[in-house]
């Protein structure tokens, strides 16, 4: 059954129209973050939107130019704080690429487990918030418990929950503890049931479908032109995934499906994320089952902090400890661009080193920043409540947007 286009097209000759200006944000409970949108409305229809961003800009690129490499990592936590381990490991991989460090399979698999857990938290929040914004709070409360469980896993691995600073350049600070592995296994057992329940609530729910199908649509061509990546691009029908295109951290050892949508609307973005959750669960399972033997870090004493007992008893360890902590390690000059598949898309690190102790220039390619500029085009002609849904389905994270 063909659906009639509900959008009203405003003709340029409609000059005697009186438009209302509506200020949405910067702090509005429905925007889930600090962004301002000044909407021009014709009755209930959005004619145009003007965005203001930068409310939580913290100048990470400038700060990074004054920090030794290992101190840059806590800055990356605070970009996409819904999936900070991906940012952490993305930075580790970038520096390792510059230094030419090759990690063993064990580290790669550990990284995959953590990155996929982080992707699960990211997508869980995004999808449940789409539900909240369309009036279904229940699903949000179901899945938030599982996000909490994943945060407990992080806590077991590194001690922190939100801003994790997880892993090190050259591996991990420690092995996964038996308790962490037990918690992952418990999660893997519980999560499919929760997800199925969550999907039952929303996926074929008539109200949810009416609210999301054909809302905030974007075509594949426009999405590519706007620099979309990640689930939002895949929902528009382009199967670009950094994990498949440029496999890093042994992602090519695993068999997983890259889901793509067809319409590029809110419902497709929801469904793509939902399917990615299942794929992530599978990836964590496979990585945990096939975890190879090996050490949890590469043998690079000049980069990787030695164990504390050795620092007290061995001279070399003490020297390396001192040099690493003071940022005196040798970093070759060069420039490198490295990308990982973050929660929202291609998270790129462009790093220029002049051989000094700190980056000469570091630029973060933040997916949210690139694709959020398409927002006015996506909501033009729709009503305000659809604009809210579109924004939450794009998963714009204020920390990543403003860096």
């Amino acid at each position: 059954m063909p659906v009639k286009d509900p959008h009203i097209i405003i003709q340029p000759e409609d000059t005697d129209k009186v438009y209302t200006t509506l200020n949405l944000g910067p702090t509005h409970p429905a925007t889930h973050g600090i962004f301002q949108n000044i909407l021009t409305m014709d009755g209930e229809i959005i004619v145009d939107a003007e965005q203001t961003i930068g409310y939580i800009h913290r100048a990470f690129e400038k700060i990074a130019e004054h920090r030794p490499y290992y101190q840059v990592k806590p800055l990356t936590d605070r970009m996409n704080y819904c999936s900070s381990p991906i940012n952490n490991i993305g930075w580790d991989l970038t520096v390792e690429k510059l230094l030419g460090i090759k990690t063993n399979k064990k580290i790669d698999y550990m990284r995959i487990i953590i990155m996929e857990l982080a992707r699960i938290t990211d997508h869980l929040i995004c999808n449940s918030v789409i539900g909240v914004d369309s009036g279904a709070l229940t699903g949000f409360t179901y899945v938030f418990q599982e996000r909490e469980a994943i945060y407990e896993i992080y806590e077991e691995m590194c001690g922190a929950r939100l801003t994790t600073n997880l892993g090190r350049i050259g591996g991990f600070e420690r092995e996964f503890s038996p308790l962490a592995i037990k918690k992952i296994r418990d999660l893997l057992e519980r999560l499919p049931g929760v997800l199925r329940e969550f999907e039952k609530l929303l996926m074929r729910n008539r109200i949810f479908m009416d609210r999301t199908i054909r809302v905030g649509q974007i075509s594949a061509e426009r999405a590519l032109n706007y620099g979309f990546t990640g689930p939002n691009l895949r929902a528009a029908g382009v199967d670009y995934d950094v994990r498949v295109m440029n496999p890093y951290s042994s992602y090519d050892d695993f068999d997983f499906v890259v889901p793509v949508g067809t319409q590029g609307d809110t419902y497709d973005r929801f469904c793509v994320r939902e399917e990615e959750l299942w794929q992530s669960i599978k990836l964590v399972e496979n990585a945990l089952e096939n975890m190879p033997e090996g050490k949890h870090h590469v043998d690079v004493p000049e980069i990787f902090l030695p164990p504390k007992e050795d620092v007290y008893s061995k001279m070399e360890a003490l020297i390396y400890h001192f040099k690493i902590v003071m940022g005196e390690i040798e970093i070759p000059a060069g420039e490198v661009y490295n990308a990982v598949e973050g929660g929202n898309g291609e998270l790129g690190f462009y790093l220029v080193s002049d051989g000094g102790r700190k980056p000469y220039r570091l630029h973060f390619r933040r997916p949210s920043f690139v694709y959020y500029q398409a927002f006015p085009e996506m909501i033009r002609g729709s009503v305000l409540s659809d604009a809210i849904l579109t924004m939450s389905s794009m998963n714009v994270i204020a920390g990543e947007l403003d860096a």
Partner: protein
Amino acid sequence: MDNNFDILTLLKEKFSSEILSSETTFDMLSVTVRSASIFSIIEFLKTDPKTEYNFLTDICGIHYPDNELPLGIIYHLHNLRENRRIRIKTFVPLDKPEVATLTSIFSSANWMERETFDFYGILFTGHPNLIRILNVEYLDFFPMRKEYPQEDPTREDKDNRFFGR
């Protein structure tokens, strides 16, 4: 690697006088070009069926205070069909930091160029809305340039020598 070489030959054929230097680092071809021809080169790279770099990954600035042309603009392009990346660099002088905008061929360039303007003061000629994006509007300097220290240089309670900086 061969692919990169082909692209470079193609570029040199088409824009021989505009290509200043090139190198391949970490499997990525990096080409430095004259700033006047940046638009035509990137348009060629996007539209030519042999190159087809159809995705603009990133634009960012860089500042080398000691160079003759101190301000740089770095473009990362991606051919999604064949999975090839290329980096295009161009440098402009401090007193006339002008380069043509890419907004007519890539919509994503809009905010990336605004960000580069915001931090480095590079003027993208023809840009529809070249105003600051992340910093406040009344800021009267470009904070990512190297002459601006991160911390207040008049502070006396902290000696940078003792902090590994």
